[in-house]
Each structure stands twice: as structure tokens, then as C-alpha cells.
């Protein structure tokens, strides 16, 4: 299934600005961004990002085994937001930044920790798409669980519709 994420340049800039801020104790920041679904040809899905939620400093948990860990307050807020977004099928995406340039992807810790959040989001908002986005300073990667799917689709392209336009394409293994 083809999957394509789009966002405005303004939203992309706001997320980068927030995620590059230093946290009092966590090594990196995370956030939540909301997205709605659009249909593409041949069953492909478009995910159109709408708004970003910055996680307050005090909702992080001190855990030096990971770059950042958020606590139950942040997760409860996210679940409630998904619940309230049900009428418009608005899903939620966990987002964080890898502070380098170029292609990026999930680290071993990312792969182990973040996908565990998705079933919870799906249980509250089953008609929405949820997922994970990792930005680099000038690129990005994403995974989306479309409604009814237990497995994610690797996002083929992330488009930033701003000035300038950004087109971040999935790295294909040879």
C-alpha cells in the first residue's frame, strides 16, 4: 500500500523548532501530531497532518536508558485527544527528531519502544490512521497503521507544502 504524509511548511517549522529545544533532563524531545486520512489511487492512503502538541517538560520521565520517555499524563492526554477526534477520524502520530541531516529511520530503541503505543491509540480511535514520524533536520521517515491493520505501512513520501517545498522520499534498500 502506498502511503504519503503531507503537512504545511508552517507546521513542519513549528515541530522542528519545538523538537530541537533542550529538555531539562531528557536527551531529546518527543511530541504528538494529528493527521486525517485521504484516499489515493489503488488503495493508497494520504495522511494530512493538522496540528502539533508539544509535550510539557514535566510530563517526561527520567530514564537514561532511552533518549526520552514520556509519562502517563502525556499518554492519557494523547488517548483523550484521539477519543475527541473520533467524529472526524483524526489519528495521532508520535514524532521525534534525529538531529542530523539526510535520511533517517528507527533506531533499535525506537523499534522496540514506540510501536507499543499504537494498539492503545487504535483501541480508542479505530477508524483513524495512527503512526510514528521521525524527522531529521532536512528529511524524515514515517510508519502508519491504517484502520484495521495490525502492521504498519512504511511511508513512501513525506511532503512539506511550504516555501520551499520539501519532498522526503523513503530510502529503498538495494
Amino acid at each position, binding site marked *: 500500500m502506498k502511503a*504519503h504524509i*503531507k*503537512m*504545511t*511548511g*508552517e*507546521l513542519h517549522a513549528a515541530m522542528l523548532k519545538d523538537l530541537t529545544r533542550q529538555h531539562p533532563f531528557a536527551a531529546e524531545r518527543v511530541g504528538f501530531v494529528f493527521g*486525517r*486520512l*485521504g*484516499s*489515493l*489511487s489503488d488503495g*493508497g492512503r*494520504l495522511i*494530512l497532518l*493538522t*496540528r502539533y502538541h508539544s509535550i510539557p517538560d514535566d510530563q517526561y520521565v527520567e530514564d537514561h536508558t532511552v533518549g526520552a520517555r514520556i509519562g502517563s499524563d502525556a499518554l492519557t492526554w494523547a488517548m483523550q485527544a484521539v477519543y475527541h477526534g473520533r*467524529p*472526524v*477520524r483524526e489519528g495521532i502520530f508520535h514524532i521525534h527528531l534525529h538531529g542530523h541531516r539526510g535520511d533517517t529511520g528507527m533506531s533499535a530503541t525506537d523499534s522496540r519502544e514506540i510501536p507499543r503505543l499504537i494498539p492503545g491509540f487504535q483501541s480508542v480511535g479505530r477508524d483513524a490512521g495512527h503512526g510514528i514520524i521521525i524527522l531529521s533536520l532536512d528529511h524524515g521517515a514515517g510508519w502508519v497503521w491504517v484502520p484495521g491493520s495490525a502492521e504498519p505501512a512504511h511511508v513512501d513520501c513525506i*511532503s512539506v*507544502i*511550504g*516555501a*520551499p*517545498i520539501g*519532498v522526503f*522520499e523513503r530510502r529503498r534498500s538495494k
Partner: protein
Amino acid sequence: MSKDRYSRQSFLGANSEELISRCTIGVPGLGGGGSHIVQQFAHIGFQRYVIYDYDAVEESNLNRLVGADLTDVLAETPKLHLAKKMIYNLQPNATIRGFACKWQDKPEPLRECQIVLGCVDSYKTREELEITCRRYLMHYIDIGMDVHGKDKPVIGGQIIQSSPGGLCMRCMGFLTDEKLATEAARYGDAGHRPQVIWPNGVLASTAIGLAVDLVTNWTRRSRTHAYLAYDGNEGTVRESLTLRNLAIKECPHFSVSEVGDPILVEL
């Protein structure tokens, strides 16, 4: 291919070739305006296209349809075929998704674009294209021309950039309920408006300039919207007076949260 191919446009930026080659362009309507548009995009190096036109070449098109000649009239060549030929002759590895129908009949492929260039006749279709571009997050660049008066003809036209989060064609005073109602009273028929090649060329080239800037940001202007007015009698393109005097700073007509497939909400 020689490294010299794009050497004359290297001022667009060191990575401009790559940025240009990754961008997907939508062109619904491949007539007098659209034929200029696809030809210039192909020269610049754009590789990905979603294009629509269901018409075939007629004799009355030859005064302005770039790429068409007398044999196309005899062969009733589809305009879609002409556009593909122009692109492939310049960019043999291009990815072209071409549809011989109205874009409204097959809208899904258009949603993958980053920029849509509208070269359509009616206000209604312009409005529909802009709504689609806002809903599926695409820059929309509109071009159009008209000739007013018979004794002393006046050629006018517009190039408008409407981008998600920025001012829309209603904000900029181009689309109005009055214009839409007048057109609707004619059953949506824009009529056979006078069309000539040179204003289309000016409008298309200016629109291409806006599009290339959106992709490469070579001017460092980061435009959120634009409304340029063409005066074909004077031979000038200037920022629209309406836009210059506009008090509005934020678009009240489109919300950035109203995106994606429409959903009927039960009350």
C-alpha cells in the same frame, strides 16, 4: 546526458536539479495555457506529472496550442498525447500519469502532487481546484486571460498562487459570489472566449517562475500567496492593486484542519 544540460540554471541552487526532479506537478487542462506549462516544466527538468485533458486538437486550437500542427488536426490527436510527447522528448525517464477525462472524474492521482497549475476556463472549476488543493495540501497556481470589448479590445489576465495556510482566491478578491453566480446563470458555460498565444505564454512563464521558486526558493522570498495582474495592452505584469490594498492577513475561508476525505458527521 552531459553535465552541461542544466548549467545555465545553476543559480537555482546546488541541489536544485534534485529538488526539481522529486516534485510532482499537476496540470488539469492542456490547452493554450497548459501546453506552455508542461513544455517549460520539461525543459527545466521536472520528471513527475499528473495531467488531464479529454479534448483532441481542432483547427481553432492552432493559433495557440504549443506543440500542435496541421497533421494533429487531421489525425485528431488527443491533447494529452501532445503533452506526453513534449515531455518525453525532453525527459525520456519522466513519470507521467495522464488521464483523458476531467480531473474531477479521477481526482485521486492529483492529490499526490505538491503543486497544481490550473489552466481552466471557468470560475467554478477554479474554485473546485482550489478547494481540492486546500483539502489535500497542494500549492495551487492559477492562470487565465480574457479579452474585453470589441472596438478597443483590452487583454487582461492573472497569475495567482494560493497555498495552504495562506490567503485564498476569495481573500485576494479574485473569486467572488457575484462572478460565480453570473457564470452559473449561463449554466456554467464560460463560452468561447478569445484566446491568443502570447498572453498565454506570459501567464504560463510567470506561473512557472512562481512554481520554480516554491521548489528551489532561489529568490528567498518564501511567498505564501501571490496575485499578479497582466495588462496585455501595456505588456506589463504587476502585483494586483486589490492585493496591495488588502487589509486581511489571514484566510477566513479555509481552515488547516479541514483536510482529508470529507466525513459526514452525525448530529
